[in-house]
Structures are given as structure tokens and as C-alpha cells.
């Protein structure tokens, strides 16, 4: 096994399980639909809340996918193979999470024009929302991977991952929605995006190592 063969294998796995990605998008859209139906469908409510609605739905959808990211690998023994393969485990983790991120985020961005119509997002904030998703979600995936790796040996780990990992997402959602809201009121939003990027970079440094430790502990 090389890094490249690992990468292509991961891509192939994602490609052959397209239905999972479709499910994530459906779940995301359904959560978004809950807000107008459950609270208030008027533009007065939706426009200021749009960024928050999209981000809440995205966080939940991502957490649902990331929770099971190591499950199959754990059950078919791939995790053990990675640990003993002689390759640097944190890099494998990074590749794995990177592939997952691309597979979920690219389709999510593609349906974003549709979603932004659903939640009456003002046009001037659209690109800010896209940017905030681009720079913010890497940290969401990377942090979630730690929780997923920790609970991979449990049958019902989803609730535990939520409980353990969601607190770490609060800063992400605060800064992401602040950026969208600032752009709506014509204020500078670059600071918020920079903070999101900083969080993603920080988790890029910390998370692969922590995930690797957790994977090793789960396998033994």
C-alpha cells in the first residue's frame, strides 16, 4: 500500500457508495425545510436567519456522515491494515478525511443556490456563505473525525459523537453566521472568515494526530 493507492481506493469507495452522499444532501435539505415550516416562512424571519439555518443543517448533516466514517473500515479490518501498513497513520487519516470532505462539500456547494432561494438568502451574502462553508467545514470534518475514531468500536456511537463533538462546533457556527450577518448589514466580514480559516488550520495540525492515536487505541 502506498499513499496514492490508499487515496485512489478511498475515492473509489466513496464513488461506489453514491447513495450515502445523496442521503446526506436529502437530510440537509430536510433540516433546512424544518425552519421555515416550524418557525416562520416569511422573508422577514428567513433572510436574517438564513446563514444560521444553513450552517445548523450542514453541521448536523456532516456529523451524521462523519460519525460512521471509520465504521466499515473497523469491521472489515482495514483499520488494522492501516495501522500495520508502515505508512504514517496521521497522513492516511488526513487523506481519508480529505476525500470525505470533498465528497460531501462539493455536492453541498452545488445545491447551495437552490437552498439559498429556499431560505431567502439575500444575493449579496451568497458568496460569503459559500466562502464560510469552504473555510469552516474542514475543521468540522477534522474535529468530527476524532470523535468518530474514538467511538468506532461502539455499536451505537452516533449519540456519543454528537455529545462529545458538538461543543467544539459552537465557535465555528458563531463565526460563520456572524460573517453572513455582517455581510447582510454591509459590515466587513473578512475577520470572521479569517477566524474560521484559523480554526480549520489549527484542527488540520491537531486532528490527524489525535485521530491516529484514537484509531490505534480502538484497534488494539
Amino acid at each position: 500500500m502506498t499513499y496514492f493507492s490508499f487515496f485512489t481506493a478511498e475515492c473509489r469507495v466513496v464513488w461506489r457508495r453514491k447513495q450515502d452522499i445523496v442521503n446526506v444532501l436529502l437530510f440537509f435539505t430536510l433540516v433546512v425545510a424544518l425552519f421555515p415550516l416550524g418557525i416562520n416562512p416569511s422573508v422577514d424571519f428567513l433572510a436574517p436567519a438564513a446563514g444560521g439555518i444553513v450552517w445548523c443543517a450542514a453541521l448536523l448533516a456532516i456529523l451524521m456522515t462523519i460519525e460512521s466514517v471509520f465504521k466499515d473500515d473497523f469491521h472489515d479490518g482495514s483499520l488494522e491494515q492501516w495501522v500495520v501498513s508502515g505508512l504514517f497513520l496521521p497522513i492516511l487519516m488526513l487523506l481519508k478525511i480529505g476525500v470525505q470532505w470533498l465528497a460531501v462539500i462539493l455536492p453541498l456547494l452545488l445545491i447551495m443556490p437552490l437552498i439559498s432561494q429556499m431560505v431567502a438568502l439575500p444575493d449579496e451574502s451568497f458568496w460569503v456563505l459559500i466562502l464560510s462553508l469552504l473555510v469552516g467545514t474542514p475543521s468540522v470534518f477534522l474535529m468530527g473525525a476524532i470523535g468518530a475514531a474514538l467511538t468506532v468500536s461502539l455499536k451505537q456511537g452516533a449519540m456519543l459523537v454528537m455529545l462529545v463533538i458538538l461543543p467544539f462546533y459552537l465557535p465555528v457556527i458563531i463565526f460563520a453566521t456572524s460573517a453572513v450577518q455582517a455581510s447582510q448589514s454591509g459590515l466587513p466580514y473578512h475577520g470572521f472568515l479569517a477566524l474560521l480559516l484559523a480554526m480549520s488550520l489549527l484542527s488540520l495540525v491537531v486532528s490527524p494526530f489525535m485521530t491516529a492515536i484514537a484509531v490505534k487505541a480502538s484497534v488494539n
Partner: protein
Amino acid sequence: MRWVWFHKLGSPKWFFFWSKAWALPAFVFGLVCLVMGLIWGLAFAPPDYQQGDSVRIIYMHVPAAMLAQSAYLTLGISGAIFLVWQMKIAPMVIASLAPIGAVMAFIALVTGAIWGKATWGTWWVWDARLTSVLVLFFLYMGVIALQHSLDDMALANKATAIISVVGLINLPIIKYSVVWWNTLHQGATFTLTEKPAMPIEMWLPLLFTVIGLYSMVGGVLMWRMQTEILLREHRTNWVKEEVMNRGL
């Protein structure tokens, strides 16, 4: 100065016997200090010139909030120690301290809400300090949940250590939330390095309650760790001897 005693703390057996001698004195000393500070603060300290008598809740609020943060810092340091040096005692610290920390964060939140109702007119605002302490409470709950749902002890130790270390990121956010964001919550009331902004008659009882609660929690932590050590080391000979000779 000899540091041998410090290194010995890493050994469960040594810690067990050492803490057996110190737990009760620490707890009693803490309790006396806390009760003294509370009586002094609640009954004799002067009321605040702005907030009147409602300021007296500070004597419970500030010590609990300080302990909630210190306990998490200890959790994070223990987690790092365990991940790097694999010391046996570190996961025991995490397992015994997390529930205490959660209780402290909870007390800080509840007393803060009551104080907020009296002074701000609302139980809760989405202020940076309040929210980050709420997150701290959730982090504690996450650590406890992880500890209890992983049956494999080795995995549970690693998992809680990792989450404790990662959660350290929240501490500077709590600490500086009142500096970075201009919000409703007031700045730090209690620092050891600077001259207190409040009169000494109010500051001294607060000092007593803080020292008292720290010492009390220290005693409780030692007791909880003794239980934890007995549980985890029950196969070793010294535990068998100890239980045979003195009972549980």
C-alpha cells in the same frame, strides 16, 4: 529541595497511601475555610454600592467558576501526560475529576443565572462568558459520557485523554471572553497578581471561600481517586493485602 515525593505521586500505590493521610485534613480545612468565608461574606461583609446585597452570591459563584476552569485545566494536563508518558495515574485523575468539574460548572451557571436575574433582570443572555462556560459544562459531560460508554478500559483512558486535551482550547476562550467581546458579564473580580478593586472586607471572605473550595475539592478528589485506584488495581497484591487488613 528533593523532588522524589513528586515523582512518587505517579505510582498508584504510593498515591493511595499518601492521599489516605491527606484527604481528610484537606477536606476539613477546606470546609472550615469555606464555611467561615461564607458566614463572613453573607452576614458581615458590606453590601456593594451598586448591586446591594445581591452581590453576596459572588461568594459561591466565583469559587465555583474558578474551580470549574482549574479542574478542566487539570484534566487537559493529565490527558497530555497520559498521551505522552502513559502514566497510570493520569486517567484516574480524569475519571475522578470530571464529575467534580461538571458539578462546579453547573453551580457556576446556576448561581450566575440567579445573580443575573437580580442584576441584569434576566436569567440568561447569550453572552460570550456565559456561553463558553455552558460549553465547558458540555465538555465535562462529554468526557463523563465517553468514560462510561467505552467498556474497554484502555480505549476509555485514551479517549477521555484525547477529548480532555482537545477541549483545552475552550479555556482561553472563557478566560478572555470578557476582554475580547464587550458583553454584559463583568471582568475578572478576583486576581492574585493585582491589587483587588473591591474593599478588603469583601475581598478577604472571597479569598477564604476560594481557598476553602479548592482544598475541599482536593480532599474529595483524593477520596474519589482512592476508590478509582482500588477498582483499577484490584488484581495487585498490595490492594489485596490492604483490603484484607483494613477492609474497604
